[in-house]
């Protein structure tokens, strides 16, 4: 399922990175460092999510310089990267699905040019239908499906990546703490 998801996501223009069991935060730190977040004056916004809440804010501040947890229009618009946590992935299409009712989730995943999507490797389902069945729309005003970076072919049908949404989408697949092996 993970392999199929990777192929589909890559076909849609996303980059897929896998982290070892329990090393999600380290992988994220490395990714951000490589992108110059925290060093070249670049920031990353990261709204609330299950992975984030597993860690003490002090630890996050230490391990992830440049990461801003207070996500507003201004901080998101100024950020180089946005980190958001998705609820499930679809193997058939490489799609990420998220309850994005909190505005901060949408700000972080749309305004900055780099979008880092965190997804548990065991939260991948087979088809779009399977994914939709997991959510009750009555409980969430904004259900978001994201597949690859933003794109357009409106000028002479030439495909250009990166219009109003992110130019790059990096999916960080992680095994949650406590799992043995892959």
């Amino acid at each position: 399922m993970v392999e199929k998801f990777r192929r589909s996501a890559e076909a849609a223009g996303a980059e897929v990175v896998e982290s070892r069991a329990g090393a999600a935060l380290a992988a994220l730190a490395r990714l951000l460092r490589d992108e110059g977040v925290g060093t070249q004056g670049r920031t990353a916004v990261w709204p609330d999510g299950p992975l984030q809440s597993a860690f003490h804010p002090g630890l996050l501040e230490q391990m992830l310089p440049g990461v801003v947890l207070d996500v507003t229009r201004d901080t998101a618009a100024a950020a180089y990267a946005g980190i958001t946590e998705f609820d499930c992935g679809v193997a058939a299409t490489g799609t990420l699905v998220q309850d994005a009712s909190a505005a901060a989730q949408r700000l972080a995943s749309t305004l900055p040019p780099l979008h880092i999507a965190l997804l548990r490797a065991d939260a991948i389902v087979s088809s779009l239908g399977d994914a939709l069945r997991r959510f009750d729309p009555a409980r969430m005003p904004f259900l978001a499906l994201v597949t690859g970076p933003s794109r357009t072919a409106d000028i002479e049908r030439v495909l250009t990546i990166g219009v109003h949404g992110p130019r790059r989408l990096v999916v960080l697949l992680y095994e949650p703490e406590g799992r043995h092996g892959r």
Partner: protein
Amino acid sequence: MAGDLRQQVRQALAHPHLPAALTRFSEDYRSSRARAYEGIDFEALRSRIAEVKARAANRLDQLAEQFAGAASARGARVVRLHTAEDVRRYIADVAQRHGARLVVKSKSMATEEIHLNAALEAAGIEVRETDLGEWIVQLARQRPSHMVLPAIHLTRDDVAGLFSRETGERLEAEIPRLVQVAREQLREKFLRAEIGISGANIAVAETGSLVLCTNEGNARLVTTLPPVHIAVVGIEKLVERFEEIEPVLAALPRSATAQQITSYVSILTGPAENAGGGPKEMHIVLYDHRRIEMSEDPLFCQALQCIRCASCLNVCPVYRLVGGHVFGKVYTGAIGTVLTAWIEGWEASRGLEQLCIQCGACRDYCPAKIDLPELILEVRRRAAAAAPRPLAARAAFAVLSNRRAFHSLLRAASLVQKPLAEGPFLRHLPLFFTEAGKNRRLPALAGRPLRDRFPHLPQPRSERRVAFFAGCLIDFVYPEIGEAAVRVLNRAGIEVVFPEKQTCCGAPAHFSGLPDAAAANARDNAEAFSGAGYEAVISACPTCTAALCTDAPRALRQQGEHDLAGRAEHLAAKTVDFSTFIRRLVEEGALRLPAGANLPPLTYHDSCHLKRTLHAEQPPRQLLRGAGYELREMQESDVCCGMGGSYSLKLPEVSSAMLARKLRMIAATQAEGVALDCPGCLMQIRGGCAAADAPVRVHHTAEWLASLLEATD
């Protein structure tokens, strides 16, 4: 009106960029769409979509109420409005209450329909389209020419010019830079706007949800950043249940942009939290101009099944030559013709319906299984009924309905044309025909029509008999096709009879929107073929076959002539196209085709009616290959040749352009001959080859087969 349309068509065809761009797109579309649908049973998917949407179309009013209830319960303000003016006023009121000075919009055909932008701008409100294509046409002050790719008619140089004017900076025609400029320019608007206006691709009655699909991410920003969101949704977007989103989402991106899914799909159920905190003020306008009336029309209700994918535009051989500014108003292409008739009235659609050549490609590709050609024909009928018929047309169809008069006229014409004929072609044509004659030599009427030759054909007596339906072209222009067909049938031990009282199959009247003339033809034929003593009625013209099998019985029923309709159905049941029948004979063992030697390589042209109406594109190929011919498939073998019956006379420029393309495809195969099963296509293609001095022989399949019989006799 007709003159105006032809003028627009000429301008479009002469455009330096448009036909080439649209044609390239249509070529790419066919292959990339096929890739996107790999592994998917398109027929099953579109049956499901048709079922879901038809059920919704039947209950639009109730579903709209259900939607309103569900969305309101979630905190949205839902309003049902029926006129463009009501919607414009509602939105202007909301804008005024908020003191809004700037509105950002994501794509919405419904807002195009009501001409919203102009109204808001008149009220002093700045409106920014955020879909890149829509923003480009907004800057150009033009209408979008395509529902999915609004700026497809503009080049990068055009866009660079527009963006340079907008930014005050001299910009190169370099696409990545231009897209970056759009991102920067519009980002500022997203952040500053007080109101975001969107459409919706799907509306779910059960939950009060709206589904928005984009690739650019603009719908997310339009619905997230401004504190107020107004969605304008035509009620035809409604489906009943949440799970019914799935089939529509499976087809819409694949058919629209050849993607498995768009980059962003947002499902909104009531207002979400605002970017600045607090709940968003969400308005949903359910727009119902003429949709309920359409849903009550037994034929047109299927037009509400449309999911706005624009496939019909992308596969239309005429659209790709003239574009959406000619072939449409707010809505373009085949579906645009139908919607315009309802939304703006029959007058507005009169020019549009003339552009349809009735090739049927759109019907094959529509993911909602809408019978677009039939709907356009009905628009044509209603437009014809509403306007007084011109004298010449009335006279022409009076003659056509009267068999004796029609045939006398044709015999007389064959005498009159003698000074103009040069071999098998007409040398100089009367002025009316000159445009038609530019790229195509028209055939001369035969000195002796088939009906006169028939009694003298040397046929063996046999127990097995079939009747032959000639049709006008084979009877009066190409009797040799009839003779060839008879020779092949004789070889199978079958005797062929020719009921003399047969007349025109009714197709010309049918396709011109004249059901009473078509019914008169149907009546004559039903009576002419009411004899017994033959096992089948063979027709070597698929347009005639389709007319006899489907349209004739229906035309009679619509006129209330149920007895005759019964006889027409009896005739229909016995009618078979030539190649299908011959293949049956070969399979039975009644006919053995001699394998020829030193045969010229051929390419096969699929006539619209043979392939798309009768689904009989295999028998001719199997017969020709079985007889030893090498068949080289041409690109776009099933794209219309441009004949379209009287279409080639009414819109000769379009017909010529389609013919030119067909000739190029034929030339690319380097075949020495073209095989086909339709005398109309034969007239078009043979005439085109002659005018172009192309050394390619064009013959009916019956003739290619019959020539083998001579060779081995």
